[in-house]
């Protein structure tokens, strides 16, 4: 029997059917799980960009037009895992299919609503990348904890105070003794009272004698000339003593005056030394308002703090080379090629209490050089429940050197009520009501912030209380405030902005605290004052007699000088001439 060999076809047509069935099953399976796959993928990738866990409640997709809808997006704050830095209520986006086939994600229209910042989480989110800088809020809290003021003790003040009163007394005492010795020595050269009286008697004898002839008169004149020379010598001695005594009196007088004023000067210096010992006095505004201003800044700097780090991370994805199915995706985009990720237009609707504000975004990407345009954003709002005018606009671009951006804002008529500034046991302060205006600008160059603005609080009503007596002074001063202008300076890295706050409040509260400190120190100062006064008065009382004696010496010297000068010299010459003339008339006229 002839055996026929049938050559089988190279094709296995039932295999084609099996392939089609496998293909259909794969597609059906993918479609069924597409939403879950998208959810997992986005949670993972957004989590990497955010640096902490991202949760998405629900993901839905539609084919025509190709798009996505996300609800309940929560981005954990890496610095505070029990808090979401941003919560997005709902987000919808349409995808450009043509660009998607080319591997580029271009979202034509993104609308996100119900955005809230700094919302609490139900459970702590996982953190993948810790923020590099410490929270500024923590620093400010620490500053407040250190807000301890101390008065130096009396002993401390006395040790630092080089008292002038005892020194002045010692100096005066020493000088007094020296002057007394000096005067005692000078007094030796003075003509005695007896000597002067003797002079007076001699002059009297000469002037009252009866001269019968010119020869007797001539002898009297010669005798008087001799006396005159002695008068001159004695007068010179009296004048010299008078000068020394006057100088001594002036010196002692000046030293006594110094002793009298020294206690007052010492007391003034004691007051100066008895100041509040705190370095924090110049930073009261930052301590009290810093945390709140930082919270407000989160709204102003939202674009920088939230979006820029994500874009920066998306541009800096590290390739993983040696793991299965990972490897490296190489880009061959020409310089003029469209960016691989682009949101052409987005509207984000932020919620502040019951008020919403829409922020309009253009060209969100991490490849601004390829796009040739920066990411721009603009928010406007007028006459809402919360504010009268809101203008915020700016632009942002990632460059080879970092992030370049600038932003201006102007907010007017924000009504704040019952806003807690500090709630510690030692100090509590609340803004009961105020009207806030703010304007300013911030720029980013090479990822470094610079700029600042003003925060004006008008119609201010504050409530404050404190346990510490010094903090209580601050609390009382705060309650008296009706308006306050705060200047803010922003600097530091984009992800960790540093705020410097200053206002007139620093000076006002500083002087109030110093005044209160002096009241507190008054008892101690009273003691110092009484002690110094007693020392000065004691010395002056004891030395008064000595000083009066010096003054008496001066008076006595003046008296002697006058007696020598005027009585003796002037009268003698006149009398001698008159008598001589009378005698001569007698001889010549025949009396």
């Amino acid at each position: 029997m002839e055996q026929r060999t049938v050559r089988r076809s190279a094709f296995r047509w039932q295999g084609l059917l099996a392939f089609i069935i496998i293909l259909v099953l794969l597609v059906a399976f993918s479609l069924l799980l597409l939403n879950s796959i998208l959810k997992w993928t986005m949670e993972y990738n957004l989590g990497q960009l955010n640096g902490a866990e991202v949760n998405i409640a629900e993901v839905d997709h539609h084919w025509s037009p190709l798009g996505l809808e996300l609800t309940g997006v929560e981005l954990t704050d890496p610095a505070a895992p029990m808090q979401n830095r941003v919560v997005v209520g709902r987000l919808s986006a349409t995808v450009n299919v043509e660009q998607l086939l080319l591997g580029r994600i271009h979202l034509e229209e993104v609308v996100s609503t119900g955005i809230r910042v700094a919302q609490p989480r139900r459970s702590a989110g996982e953190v993948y990348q810790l923020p590099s800088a410490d929270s500024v809020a923590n620093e400010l809290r620490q500053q407040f904890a250190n807000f301890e003021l101390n008065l130096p003790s009396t002993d401390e003040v006395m040790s630092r105070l080089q008292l002038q009163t005892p020194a002045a007394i010692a100096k005066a005492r020493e000088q007094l003794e020296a002057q007394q010795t000096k005067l005692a020595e000078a007094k030796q050269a003075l003509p005695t009272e007896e000597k002067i009286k003797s002079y007076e008697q001699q002059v009297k004898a000469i002037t009252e004698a009866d001269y019968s002839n010119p020869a007797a008169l001539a002898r009297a004149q010669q005798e008087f000339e001799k006396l005159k020379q002695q008068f001159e010598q004695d007068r010179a001695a009296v004048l010299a003593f008078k000068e020394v005594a006057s100088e001594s009196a002036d010196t002692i007088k000046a030293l006594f005056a110094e002793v009298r004023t020294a206690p007052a000067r010492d007391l003034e210096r004691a007051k100066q030394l008895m100041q509040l010992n705190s370095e924090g006095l110049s930073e009261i505004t930052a301590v009290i308002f810093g945390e709140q201003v930082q919270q407000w800044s989160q709204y102003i700097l939202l674009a920088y703090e939230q979006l820029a780090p994500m874009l920066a991370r998306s541009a800096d994805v590290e390739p993983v080379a040696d793991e299965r199915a990972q490897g490296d995706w190489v880009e061959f985009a020409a310089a003029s090629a469209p960016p691989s990720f682009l949101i052409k237009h987005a509207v984000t609707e932020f919620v502040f209490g019951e008020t919403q504000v829409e922020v309009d975004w253009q060209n969100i990407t991490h490849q601004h050089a390829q796009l040739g345009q920066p990411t721009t954003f603009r928010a406007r709002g007028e006459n809402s429940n919360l504010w009268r005018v809101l203008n915020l606009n700016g632009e942002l671009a990632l460059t080879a050197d970092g992030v370049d951006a600038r932003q201006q804002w102007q907010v007017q008529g924000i009504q704040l009520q019952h806003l807690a500034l500090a709630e510690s046991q030692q100090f509590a302060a609340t803004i009961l009501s105020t009207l806030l205006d703010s304007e300013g600008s911030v720029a980013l160059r090479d990822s470094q912030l610079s700029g600042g603005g003003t925060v004006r609080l008008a119609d201010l009503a504050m409530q404050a209380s404190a346990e510490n007596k010094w903090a209580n002074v601050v609390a009382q001063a705060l309650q008296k405030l009706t308006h306050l202008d705060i200047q803010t300076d922003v600097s530091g890295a984009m992800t960790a902005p540093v705020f410097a706050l200053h206002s007139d409040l620093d000076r006002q509260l500083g002087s109030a605290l110093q005044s209160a400190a002096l009241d507190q120190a008054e008892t101690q100062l009273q003691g110092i004052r009484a002690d110094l006064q007693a020392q000065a008065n004691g010395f002056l009382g004891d030395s008064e007699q000595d000083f009066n004696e010096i003054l008496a010496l001066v008076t006595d010297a003046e008296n002697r000088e006058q007696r020598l000068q005027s009585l003796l010299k002037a009268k003698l010459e006149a009398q001698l001439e008159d008598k001589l003339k009378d005698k001569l008339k007698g001889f010549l006229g025949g009396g």
Partner: protein
Amino acid sequence: MLTLLARFFKALNSETGAWALAFAFVLGMIMGITPLWRVHNLLILLVALLFRVNLTGFLLSWAVFSAIAYLVDPISHAIGAAVLAAEAWQPVWTAMYQSAVWRVVQFHHTITMGSLILSALFAPILAVISYFIVSRYRQHIQRWFMQLKLVQMFKASRLFQIYAGLKGE
């Protein structure tokens, strides 16, 4: 797995062509070494199903080379990175990168590119070696092998019962 092995021995001892087995090994090797979720693997699957290559050999080869791929990935990445970075080829890659079809192929992925090149280079070698081994086995080893006491014992085993229960393709 026992069933798969039994089927393989059945095919080895059947009238299935040696080239059909060799091609099955090659296709399984490409699919095993390259990343699974790639468009080219759909093409491999279509060829394996549509043409009369031995499916058992294909599946076995895929399983074995998938395990080997974990060791080969660093080499694949290095080859792919070098090729994609080659200056002379940049215009080609850039042009392909602008095409939706090529982007779907994911040629710009280093491990995909490297493993494809590696498997393409190894494919003819594996095909020839496989054909040679299957042919030699059938010519010289099969009868001697079947008479071994060990094989006789094996014939009484559970694996052989599965093997005997199978119908040839």
